[in-house]
């Protein structure tokens, strides 16, 4: 990819679009620059959203290498559709809609049976995966692993749409309207999904507090 410094666009159409989205969000503005061929803006978008997208996908599919593979597909699709991008909503809504679509497809197709990896896996694709830098005692480490296994199971037990809604609400702090657009449903349906999901989680994780 050619690296071009980000410059204000000279294209009047883009200027108009940018004014329209100026109040909407900075990401949409960056995406409009990508549409004009500015690859630096794409690098900035990648820098800003790489982590949240991978973490969301990881919690959806519970597999580190699959989550990275799906995240690659998300950003590839973003780049591929740069020419037709229209800033009709927040960029993160669109981004998480792509990520949710890919994750739900993956879960639906039952691919999680293939190559399921445990949480304590350290090496994937030749890259050393160091989970934590601190040095806990063996007892703390074991307690943490047991607790995380419980959380992972509770999340995994949720229906895929409820899981996606909880992850976007809890970790990505998306608004109800954004989650609704990502899941292609109404805002009231999202509230209902979230309420039922948290109800299940309260039931399954209650013993952790004791």
């Amino acid at each position: 990819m050619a690296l071009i410094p980000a410059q204000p666009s000279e294209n009047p159409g883009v200027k108009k679009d940018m004014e329209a989205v100026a109040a909407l969000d900075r990401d949409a503005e960056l995406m409009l620059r990508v549409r004009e061929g500015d690859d630096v803006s794409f690098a900035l978008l990648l820098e800003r959203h790489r982590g949240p997208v991978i973490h969301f996908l990881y919690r959806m599919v519970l597999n580190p290498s699959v989550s990275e593979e799906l995240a690659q597909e998300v950003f590839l699709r973003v780049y591929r559709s740069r020419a037709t991008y229209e800033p009709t909503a927040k960029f993160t809504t669109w981004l998480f809609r792509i990520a949710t679509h890919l994750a739900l497809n993956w879960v639906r197709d039952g691919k999680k049976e293939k190559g399921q990896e445990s949480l304590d896996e350290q090496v994937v694709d030749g890259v050393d995966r160091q989970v934590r830098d601190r040095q806990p005692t063996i007892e703390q480490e074991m307690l943490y692993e047991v607790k995380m296994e419980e959380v992972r199971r509770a999340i995994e037990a949720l229906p895929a749409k409820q899981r996606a809604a909880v992850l976007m609400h809890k970790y990505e702090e998306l608004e109800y309207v954004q989650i609704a657009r990502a899941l292609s449903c109404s805002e009231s349906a999202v509230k209902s999904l979230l309420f039922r999901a948290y109800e299940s989680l309260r039931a399954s994780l209650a013993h952790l507090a004791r």
Partner: protein
Amino acid sequence: MNCPTKTNEDAEILLDYCAQALSPVQTAEFEIHLKQCADCSQLVAAQKEVWGALDAWTPVPVSVNFDARLYARIAQEQTAPAWQRWLRRIFQPPVPYPLWKSAVPLIAACAVLAAGLAVRMPDAGNAAHPQLRADKVDIEKVEQTLEDFDILTPPVQAPAGSM
């Protein structure tokens, strides 16, 4: 305020309170309600426990070569033949098309096909009842034969002296 647990109205206020997403005014109002409502207090306590458990779940770090792999895939795509890129755009859209949008061209195609068939086969309705159609033709033939018979039959001569 209405109790979200009892009335099932504004139930999201419980979630928003735990997520610290309420405005200061809403928070203060809800905290007054919490002091009076045991059900809501219990639910909020349980929700905070869930929140804490989820907070502790740290995801694995991102691979150091994630960006390099992505840029390699982008470069590979850009050098692919145009027809391949075109097919990818059609069959791998960033977000799925809504089902009703996919159905519109199909319904339109069916309507055009049905209209075309109706124009080409106007008597298609009779095809289902060949016997009825045959009966209709027979009646016409009978009428025609009777008319021909009338023409061929010489007029009856009036008896002499009747004029």
